């Protein structure tokens, strides 16, 4: 089968066309169509996995067509294990978000139909951004995908949604513009060296002098750091997470923000190895600050959604730490972390979303004693929380452990600081669990209804995956290791060998 990836990108768009044909009033049919389209996409992504060769180094399922030949721009897609797992994360989470947030689309400023159109367009772009192997194509999707997210936050969110959406958009676009300058820069360098290309493989073979590398690296890195988000570029995130619907937050933090950390590996590391080594210690510092800052602020949050947002800042710190440790354990740990963080954030946002919807308030202080009223919902939230604090036996433990081992050999002091993040994580999760789930049943909570079958169906696969990958990470971790070794050889670094005592 040819063009697997293109078909994968197009399937959600076919869903959009199908939605366009369904009558506006028939909300149920609209939702079913959207779910069907996302499930079809999921099936196609399994076909992609089936055709993927784990041992092969480099991009697979590649397609390349001329797009704007005046600038040597191609529509070029291809995947390695890192991008394929992220695509899989996308195709799994989108139907779950649809099923979990069945009524999310109904009280927005626009119609439910628009909600699903935006979501499916976003899915196409999320797949496309991970599949792109042409830097220009990546950039175009990277920027264009902000528009549907903007309308999803501002059109369907809560509270100060319009302002939060605008802040998110301006931050991201600003980062994107810096990246545009760097994208143009590297293209001109390739032209001057006689190649003239946007192909990421070709670009990684260029020889670029150190000072130019540094500038271009920063152009890419700041864009990704805003996206990821890394302290001090994170300020847009809590507002956006607080205002967006549970489903939008899930996709925003679970997948979209991964474009930042994914971009660091794919572009910062492989295109500018020299600059990466120069900046690594600084970035490690920022990562550790993010870990501690996110964790400490998470403890103090009163709003459950902003608490989850701050935990994510801490987790993105771990991912960045793993990437810039430049060891194979660190990078594979970070790539695996991205997947786990996707699922565990999804579990947190979705369960928190249900709680907020039922209670009508997102203040942690208003909750209490949920365990007795809504046991299934409470347990789901609890497991999601445990996954966020990386409890052994859940998949996030594996990745966090790998990241810490991988970075300890290079940056022992930073790693020790980062490890305290784990303690803080236990604190912020267990405090919320204690306040929200246990204790007296607070007034207003008595009549809460537990999860229905639809909601159980939505959350079950996420929890199952968290547990399964916790005990048996190999099916995901092994291919990631292969991809990581390719990245390592591209940057030209090897793992430090433990010094034997003489």
């Amino acid at each position, binding site marked *: 089968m040819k063009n697997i990836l293109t078909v994968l990108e197009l399937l959600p768009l076919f869903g959009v066309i199908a939605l366009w044909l369904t009558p506006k009033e028939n909300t149920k049919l609209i939702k079913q169509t959207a779910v069907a389209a996302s499930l079809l996409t999921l099936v196609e992504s399994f076909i992609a996995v089936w055709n993927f060769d784990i041992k092969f180094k480099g991009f697979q399922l590649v397609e390349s067509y001329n*797009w704007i030949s005046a600038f040597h721009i191609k529509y070029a897609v291809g995947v390695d294990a890192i991008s394929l797992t992220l695509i899989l994360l996308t195709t799994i989470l989108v139907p779950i978000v649809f099923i979990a947030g069945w009524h999310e689309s109904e009280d927005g400023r626009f119609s439910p139909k628009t909600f699903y159109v935006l979501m499916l367009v976003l899915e196409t772009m999320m797949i496309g951004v991970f599949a792109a192997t042409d830097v220009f194509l990546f950039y175009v999707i990277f920027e264009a995908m902000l*528009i549907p997210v903007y309308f999803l936050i501002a059109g369907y969110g809560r509270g100060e949604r319009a302002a939060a959406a605008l802040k998110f958009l301006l931050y991201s676009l600003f980062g994107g*513009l810096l990246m545009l300058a760097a994208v143009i820069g590297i293209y001109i360098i390739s032209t001057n060296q006689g190649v003239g290309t946007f192909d990421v493989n070709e670009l990684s073979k260029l020889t670029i002098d150190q000072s130019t590398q540094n500038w271009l690296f920063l152009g890419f890195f700041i864009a990704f750091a805003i996206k990821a988000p890394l302290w001090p570029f994170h300020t847009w995130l809590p507002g956006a997470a607080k205002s967006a619907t549970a489903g939008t937050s899930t996709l925003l933090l679970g997948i979209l923000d991964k474009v930042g950390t994914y971009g660091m590996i794919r572009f910062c590391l492989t295109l500018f190895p020299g600059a990466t080594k120069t900046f690594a210690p600084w970035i490690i510092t920022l990562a550790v600050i993010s870990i501690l800052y996110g964790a400490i602020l998470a403890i103090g949050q009163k709003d459950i959604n902003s608490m989850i947002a701050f935990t994510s800042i801490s987790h993105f710190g771990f991912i960045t730490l793993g990437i810039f440790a430049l060891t194979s354990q660190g990078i594979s740990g970070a790539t695996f972390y991205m997947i786990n963080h996707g699922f565990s954030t999804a579990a947190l946002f979705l369960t928190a979303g249900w709680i907020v919807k039922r209670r009508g308030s997102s203040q942690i202080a208003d909750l209490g004693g949920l365990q007795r009223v809504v046991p299934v919902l409470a347990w789901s939230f609890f497991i999601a929380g445990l996954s966020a604090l990386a409890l052994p036996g859940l998949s996030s433990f594996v990745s966090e452990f790998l990241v810490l081992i991988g970075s300890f050999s290079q940056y022992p002091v930073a790693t020790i600081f980062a490890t305290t993040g784990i303690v803080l994580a236990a604190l912020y999760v267990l405090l919320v669990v204690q306040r929200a789930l246990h204790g007296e049943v607070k007034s207003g909570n008595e009549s809460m209804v537990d999860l229905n079958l639809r909601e159980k169906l939505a959350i079950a696969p996420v929890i199952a995956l968290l547990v399964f990958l916790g005990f048996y990470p190999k099916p995901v971790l092994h291919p990631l290791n292969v991809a990581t070794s390719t990245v390592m050889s591209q940057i030209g670094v090897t793992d430090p060998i433990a010094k034997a005592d003489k």
Partner: protein
Amino acid sequence: MLSAPHLNYALLAPILIILGAALLGVLVEAFISKALRSRLQIGISLIAVIAAFIQLIRVRNLTSTSAAVGSVAIDGAGIYIQLIILALAFVGLLYIADTDNFTAQASAIPGSTEEASSIAAGSQQTEVFPLTLFAIAGMMLFPIATDLITLFVALEVLSLPLYLMSGLSRRRRLLSQEAALKYFLLGAFSSAFFLFGAAFLYGYSGSLSLNGIADGVHSSGANSVFLLIGIIFLSVGLLFKVGAVPFHSWTPDVYQGAPTPITGFMAACTKAAAFGAMLRIFYVGFNDVQWDWKPIISAIAVITMVFGAIAAIVQRDVKRTLAFSSITHAGFILIAVVALSKNGLAAALFYFISYGFATLGAFGIVTLVRDSSGEITDLNRWSGLGKRSPLVASAFSLFMLSFGGIPLTAGFIGKFSVFTASYESGNINLVVFGVLTSAVALFFYLKIVLMIFFGESRSDTLTVVIPSILTRVAISICVIVTILLGVYPSLIFNSLQTFATFLH
């Protein structure tokens, strides 16, 4: 023996068709009854523009410097700019066809009984069509003219009708007339500057043709102070027409006061024509003294971008906002001028298209949002437009996103190609300024989008009129071009690779 100068009529035909149609339009005004005039004029104008367009396509592969005794150069870039101007003018004419925007009788004093009676009689000011055609002819001549006299004549031919047309608004006539007067006075000044510069260049090189001036630079016997003064004053005249800072002060007032269809036409076409001429003058005439003028024009480009973007943020009036936005875009195009390369020229030409159609589309939508006293240009009253009329709001937002340079719109490709050309020529600092200004500019474009879709609707009197078929076609063309060139810009760039050249 005196021999008549040789004219190559086939190559000059596009301009002659437009001029002929304009004269025909004058005759129509004189001899045809009022009832028929308006339709006939629309028909003549549109057919003339289409015919000129077809003729240009037919001669597209011919090049000549002697089509009119060396006064014009028919070359790839010249033909391309003319095609762009005609395409933009076509859309502009579709708006102008809605004569409801123009005063019933321009000579009547605002508020007088004479005005009231002519409104009651249902008269229409159909002279606007021949005036538009004269302006188009001037715009077509301006970027292909190769000597300073022809350049000046073209400049006046395109400007004079525009001064008049700015004053023809049906509503808020005093504002409109003030705008026209201001435009005329400042325009006259800038023409004087242009002539002054031309005189100095003649004094320097002993020639009025661009090639002659370029040769004069080589022979280098002359006093180069004359050359510098000439370049500076000539540039002032041109920069005034494109609305670059510090010669921009007419732009917001004229854009606001002029009838909106005229504003759209003027903003899109004048910019293409004036920049076309500017590109030719700098690429052909002043190429060898680039180290003298590049720093100045670079500085003006930066000031223009930054000032336009910052001033636009505080505007309350949609037409003024678009005016400052056009100033910012003038700055971006100046970056392409400074790039001084084939890619820079191609980028500028693409930018004319992406900017031009988005501008025409945006002004077209401004004509639709009205209350009983005419167009509503107060941005606050646009708040919540998305709820009332989602389609119109979406189209307007699309144009804003294209202005802002969001990927998958033509505006993004325009910006990308300008920045690429500039980077390639080594002007990396201009790219950095351009990128930072884009971020500032995005702020006000997105604020408008935000207000339209998410603001509370405040005015109950606001209505979105059902557009006439011609206006609907015009806006649709703009939407399609903006999306199509955003997704598949090769449609234009493939042809630009052969056409983006000037004859020397």
